[in-house]
């Protein structure tokens, strides 16, 4: 601004010579604008302008970096929360399906029509699973293809189950083959998809938890570079103008430092809160989900072992593997969810009795009665129901805790995400103000 107003009078001050003469003089001026820029940055005021531009730009960049850092951490927290919710949803689908299949396989075991309550449980589980699939597909577009595929396999599964029921209703033994095929289609087609979904979401949650701390890099690096530049500006000014401190620029530096310290502290506190959540509530949620899935898998395998009537050793091996997984996961939540342990231990004891009745004593009918019976406290069905209820309650509590803790951590962040740029601009204005005081002395 100062250039355009002050420079022309210098050029045009001589009295007007013939127009022919002015033309050669004027043309080189206009054809070499770099000359004007060089002139503008020439000498001490020129250097000042350079330092001013550099510092002001740096201050604005700092504002942007601070905003970016906060937005990144905030986003990572938000996404960690969303991905945890998605993971819980996917595991909910898994649990509902294995639970439905446990109902369906039990229909093999007992003659006659399945008990209405068991059928209702099957229908409810399938309905819940299909509701969760829709929710999950809306919540995470990246899961849509896999969930769509899952839906297709479930259509086949449910079709086979209904065909089995229709045949059973007519007293045709072929129904049991349809049920067997249904169970196989769930095991071979649906569950691998769910495993892939769980894996993908676990890794997304991990990535976001890791990313929560990354926001502070923007803030710290941006802040340190800006402080260096401002310090250089102060030092350079002090040297050139023999004044110790340029107050506005010092204020800008203080503003940057303050933002950096306050923001950094807030981010590191949010990061450590998130780390805490990951180590406790999230770990519990994962363990409980895994325990529930493995437990239902074990229960299904108990039925399949009995259905195989003596040639089901492979299923019993699978039971042992699933039960070991439940034990491992429950050990993680031993302190936080003690209510889950008792029914599981009881169930394991009853399972041992069932195996003893079937394999050692050859009392298949008694074994089946203990497996599907509804006597409180003595039959596997009811004890397992207790485990289901207790673990579902604990899972609900821990997954809510994860989401509360993460959203608390997020809401605890100062609003630097949108204040960052204004702070940067204020710092830049302070720098400009401070520098223009000195520049004024050269006018």
């Amino acid at each position, binding site marked *: 601004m100062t250039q355009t107003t002050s420079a022309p009078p210098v050029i045009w001050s001589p009295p007007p010579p013939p127009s022919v003469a002015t033309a050669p003089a004027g043309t080189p001026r206009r054809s070499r604008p770099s000359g004007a820029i060089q002139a503008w940055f020439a000498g001490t005021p020129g250097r000042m302008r350079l330092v001013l531009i550099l510092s002001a730009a740096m201050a604005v960049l700092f504002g*942007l970096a601070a905003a*970016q850092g906060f*937005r*990144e951490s905030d*986003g*990572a927290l938000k*996404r960690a929360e*969303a991905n945890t919710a998605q993971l819980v949803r996917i595991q909910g689908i898994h649990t509902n399906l294995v639970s439905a299949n446990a109902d369906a396989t039990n229909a093999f*075991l*007992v*003659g*006659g029509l399945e008990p209405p309550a068991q059928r209702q449980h099957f229908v409810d589980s399938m309905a819940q699973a299909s509701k969760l699939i829709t929710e999950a597909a809306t919540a*995470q577009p*990246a*899961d*849509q*293809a*896999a969930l769509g*595929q899952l839906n297709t396999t479930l259509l086949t599964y449910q079709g086979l189950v209904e065909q089995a029921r229709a*045949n*059973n209703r007519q*007293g*045709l*033994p*072929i*129904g*049991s*083959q*349809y049920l*067997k*095929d249904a169970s196989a289609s769930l095991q*071979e*087609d649906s569950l*691998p*998809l769910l*495993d*892939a*979904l769980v894996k*993908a*979401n676990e890794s*997304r949650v991990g990535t976001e938890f890791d*990313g929560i701390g*990354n926001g502070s890099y923007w803030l710290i690096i941006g802040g340190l570079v800006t402080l260096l530049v401002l310090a250089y500006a102060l030092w350079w000014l002090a040297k050139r103008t023999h004044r110790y401190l340029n107050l506005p620029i010092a204020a800008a530096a203080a503003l940057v430092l303050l933002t950096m310290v306050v923001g950094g502290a807030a981010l590191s506190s949010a990061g450590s809160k998130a780390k805490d959540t990951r180590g406790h509530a999230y770990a519990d949620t994962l363990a409980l989900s895994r325990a529930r899935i493995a437990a239902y898998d074990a229960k299904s395998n108990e039925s399949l072992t009995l*259905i*195989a*009537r*003596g*040639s089901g050793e492979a299923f019993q091996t699978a039971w042992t593997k699933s039960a070991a997984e439940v034990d491992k996961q429950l050990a993680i939540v031993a302190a936080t969810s003690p209510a889950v342990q008792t029914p599981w231990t009881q169930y394991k004891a009853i399972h041992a009795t069932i195996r003893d009745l079937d394999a050692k004593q*050859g009392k*298949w009918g008694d074994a089946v009665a203990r497996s599907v019976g509804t006597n409180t406290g003595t039959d596997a069905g009811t004890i397992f129901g207790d485990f289901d209820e207790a673990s579902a309650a604990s899972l609900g509590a821990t997954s809510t805790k994860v989401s509360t803790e993460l959203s608390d951590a997020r809401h605890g962040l100062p609003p630097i995400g949108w204040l960052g740029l204004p702070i940067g601009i204020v710092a830049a204005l302070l720098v400009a103000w401070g520098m223009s005081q000195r520049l004024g002395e050269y006018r």
Partner: protein
Amino acid sequence: MKKQLIAAGAAAALFALTACGSSNYEATPVPTKPVPVETPPAPGTLPLKCDNALASYAPDGPLPAPGQFPAGSYMAQIKQRGRLIAGVSADSLHLGSRNPISGDIEGFDIDMVKAVAQALGVELELRVISSPQRLPVLIDGSVDIVARNMTINCDRWSQIAFSAEYYRSGQKSLVPLSSNAKSLNDLPPGTAICTPTGSTSYTNLRKNFRLLKAVTADTDGGCLVLFQQGKVFGISGDDTVLAGDAAQDPYARVIKGERFSDEPYGLGMSKKHPEFVQFVNGVLEQIKADGRWKASYNKWFAADLGPAPAPPKPVYGRVPE
């Protein structure tokens, strides 16, 4: 002009900065199902030949009463255990199938092992096995006896022992009701026909109808499901099994005239206990003589296959190795 450019550049930079670390995840990979490799069935070793596959071990005198089995005999062992473990089918209607209403496994095969258990004076424990499991469960000793529409042949005699023949079946074929085929030869080449895995039906189908595509399932029920789902055109198997299939599916019919093999059924036992085979042969003689065999036949097969013929005559003469 310049200012606008700078503003636009700054905005672009801002968008670029905020874009990084956003929720653009890679799509969850959909696991690919391993495609089952279709192994063309080996043209096969030639079936073992022997003089008389039907010959079993002759019973050793009159049937001993329960509790009077020779010490150290397999019958004494079973008696001590208190139950006879039999490997059976649970989805071959009228032979061995689970009654959906009662949940019990019942049929002609089951009646045979029931008679054996009764003669032993022990309980009967039924273990459901698939077609290819029939020989392995006998060889590893996890069941005492297999009653699962098993054809007596020389191949199998090399691994297990058979009782005398208790039923003479034959292989027929089942096609959709709408089909006009009078023989499997009427079907176009490459038509898919299902037989149980590891069965003589499979071997016979491959031998007699080379141009058809042989598909296998683990059980008879598995074949019927494939048929109902339209994945195979027809089923080939023992007339007894096919009668049971047709009884469950009004849209299926058995080709009447074409019976392309004889399938003599025997109860399978381990080769290690010839005295038990002799005992079982004694039991079979008894039930054939006292009318229990006939009653059971009429109960399960009369409706589909007509009234009971004379029971197959036992052939003996084999000497324990």
